[in-house]
């Protein structure tokens, strides 16, 4: 019996190389192929969303209306956010998860490889539908990515397309998240304990849980919008006993965990990179896990800090203010641990490390402005100003995006088998860092001075800082072309060794560079796992 089963497996088991041509990418069940698809897709979306950001910054370069119609400007802010959140940052981290998690836990592939393929191939459909709304009567959605009613109900023909594209994004995320959880819990090398897992894997485990918990809630929220619009329900209509504010509560119950969905994997990437280039084990390995879990828990009970101005009982305002401030504690633990890892380390500053260092510093700035916004009384002044824009762009651009760049540079030699162009990488880093600060730092000032967000025009007193921000944005956009150059020349450098860096920790460095199509046919043993973990367990 055993031999016939083994034969049957050989017959069905796909242990040969990839299929040829387009079929490889359409039908693939390989985690590396699907990871590559995710990463390329997210890069394309990053440039489309970036182009929309540049339309916004071009319009805002000077006071007064110059280039685009205000309605189109609003479409740009809405679409920029939807594309960057759901199309660029989230798929990029899923791409990293696909590539790295099986290799980091000694697994051959994801647990549910066909569903993995579907999770990816839903995304082009979702974003094809979303982008097509740009050409529809009434234009693309312009009510903000948060889709607050009643404003969003004024969207033209684009409205149902917006709702269903959000449904599809959710479907893709949920399937991807289920796959990641099952992979980590069931495909992990049997000798690897949970606390021996790399922090990147841990942060993704937590993120995947958040995704499954909140994406269905978003689906519910937009379904209620759809039925309010087309089927006469009264969820968000006061006349029928509903409440538009209720949408905000449901949306932000999704929305706040969502922001941690975009940053926890970034924490994971940074926690992998800093020990490598500080040449020290990660400081406080276990506390990283506990801090990440605490952040995930707290993310469910802070949502109303996004809506302090809409009206809620005082007790609610106080609760959400203090709960929000609590998040600074586990986040502080993480920042402390990164700094502690670097303390007295033998540091070198290759591109991934530079991006990671900038992440620690600049993300923390975004965290601090978040603390300011958490104070209810102050937030009533800051709400819907450019200070908020500055805050969340600091955590998302030099936060999430920089972590993605750091991860891409860190693992690129493992993916391609060649060292990338370090000089170009450093140029990419320095130009990005300078321009990202030039773009977003002045927004703090105009925000505190009262410039409202999502408005295509502004008072002349804000002109100088806006000019700076616009120049920074164009510079930042152009800087990303250096990254494209690095990718296009990724196989032109010298051959990478298997370990690539100086004694990096992690199972991914025990396999050849480039990593073979199928990595771990049999799970790695206890000794290998122990010597490739930052954990003391």
């Amino acid at each position, binding site marked *: 019996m*055993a031999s016939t*089963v*083994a034969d*049957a*497996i050989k017959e*069905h*088991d*796909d242990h040969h190389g990839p*299929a040829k041509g387009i079929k490889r990418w*359409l*039908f693939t*069940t390989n985690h590396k192929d699907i990871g590559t698809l995710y990463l390329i897709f997210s890069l394309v979306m990053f440039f489309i969303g970036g182009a929309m950001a540049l339309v916004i910054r071009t319009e805002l370069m000077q006071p007064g209306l110059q280039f685009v119609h205000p309605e189109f400007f609003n479409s740009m802010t809405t679409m920029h956010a939807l594309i960057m959140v759901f199309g660029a940052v989230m798929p990029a981290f899923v791409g990293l998860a696909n590539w790295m998690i099986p290799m980091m836990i000694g*697994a*051959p592939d994801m*647990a*549910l490889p*066909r569903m993995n*393929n*579907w999770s990816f*191939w*839903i995304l*082009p459909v979702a974003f094809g*539908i979303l982008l097509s709304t740009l050409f529809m009567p009434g234009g693309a959605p312009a009510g903000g990515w948060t889709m607050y009613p009643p404003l969003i109900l004024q969207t033209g*023909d684009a409205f*149902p*397309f917006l709702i*269903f594209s959000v449904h599809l994004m959710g479907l893709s995320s*949920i399937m991807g998240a289920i*796959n990641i*959880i*099952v992979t980590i819990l*069931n*495909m992990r090398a049997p000798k690897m304990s949970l606390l021996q897992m790399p922090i990147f894997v841990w942060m993704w485990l937590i993120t995947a849980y958040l995704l*499954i*918990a909140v994406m*269905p*809630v978003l*689906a*519910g*929220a937009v379904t*209620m919008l759809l*039925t309010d619009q087309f*089927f*006469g*329900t*009264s969820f968000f*209509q*006061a*006349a*029928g*006993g*509903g*409440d538009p*504010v*209720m949408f905000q509560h*449901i949306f932000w119950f999704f929305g706040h965990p969502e922001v941690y969905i975009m940053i926890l994997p970034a924490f994971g990437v940074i926690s992998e990179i800093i020990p490598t280039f500080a040449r020290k084990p990660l400081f406080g390995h276990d506390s990283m896990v506990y801090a990440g879990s605490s952040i995930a828990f707290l993310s469910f009970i802070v949502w109303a800090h996004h809506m302090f101005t809409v009206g809620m*009982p005082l007790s609610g305002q106080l609760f959400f203010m203090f709960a929000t401030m609590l998040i600074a504690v586990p986040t502080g633990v993480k920042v402390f641990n990164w700094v502690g890892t670097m303390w007295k380390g033998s540091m070198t500053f290759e591109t991934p490390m530079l991006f990671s260092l900038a992440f620690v510093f600049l993300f923390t700035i975004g965290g601090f402005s978040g603390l300011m916004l958490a104070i209810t009384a102050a937030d009533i002044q800051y709400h819907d100003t450019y200070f908020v824009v500055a805050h969340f762009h600091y955590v998302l651009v030099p936060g999430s995006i920089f972590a993605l760049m750091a991860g891409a540079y860190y693992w690129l030699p493992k993916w391609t088998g060649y060292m990338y162009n370090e000089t170009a990488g450093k140029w990419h880093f320095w130009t990005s860092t300078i321009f990202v600060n030039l773009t977003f730092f002045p927004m703090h000032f105009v925000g505190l001075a009262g410039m409202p967000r999502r408005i295509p025009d502004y008072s002349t007193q804000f002109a100088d800082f806006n000019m700076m921000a616009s120049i920074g944005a164009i510079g930042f956009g152009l800087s990303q072309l250096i990254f494209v150059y690095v990718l296009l020349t990724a196989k032109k450098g010298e051959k990478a060794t298997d370990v690539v860096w100086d004694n990096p920790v992690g199972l991914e460095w025990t396999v050849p560079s480039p990593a073979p199509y199928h990595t771990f*046919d*049999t*799970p790695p043993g206890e000794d290998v796992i122990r010597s490739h973990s930052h954990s003391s367990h």
Partner: protein
Amino acid sequence: MSTHAEDRYYVPHDSHWPIVGSAGLLLLMVGVSAWLNGAETGFWVMIAGFAVMIYMLAGWFGTVIGENQNGVYNLQVDKSFRMGMMWFIFSEVMFFAAFFGALFYARNMSVPWLGGESNNFFTNSVLWQGFEATWPTNGPGEVGGDFTVMGPMGLPLINTAILLTSSVTVTIAHHALIAKHRGTLKLMLALTFLLGFIFVGLQAYEYVHAYQDLNLKLTTGIYGSTFFMLTGFHGLHVTIGAIMLFIIWLRVMRGHFTPEKHFAFEATAWYWHFVDVVWVGLYVFVYWM
């Protein structure tokens, strides 16, 4: 490298079903959207999308069932499927949580506030003068006109009994499967999906009654919205669950499943219990309280 199935990871071969599914979703979503925007052709595109989705589901599940019957799945794959199903059900729980959340928010926050509670005295006296916060309500604008409430006795109570009974029968079927009593298994499983379809039928009858006799509609303010959205999505899930049970029954008739390995049966049973628990929540909070 060991040749024993249990020591070795299983990786499935390439599949064209996911991309077929994506094509189906594209047709479905574009079709529904166009139809909602008033384009008649959208309806037919939507139907085509449905057809492609059904073709995909049949083909994909068919492939997996075939592979399973050939014995290519080891225990690890079985466990992956189990965990996947559990997390999928968790996502469904959260989907219903959004609508239950809307119900609780409306009952405890928005309706009392429209009636002047908390610091909303002027909301009531200026905007909605004379509105008294009670539940059920169709709001201060009396959206949808006078209506009668759907009480907990009668049909809903019978439906509760039906669904709870079906949870018992599916459990008996499970025990019969493990004990190799195939006759009991077939009977109890058939009983389970028949009870499921009877539930859906009675629910449909209840809807007709609500629309024709009670003037209780989807458009009846927040009460009608929450009532029909919660019971409607639940009914949809019962329908899907009953179809799943029916397919499992067909597989039982073909001799599938062993006392040791019957993941699909268990997954369907879990799903059925989930649908059951949601109903209990619905019965308590929508019909009863």
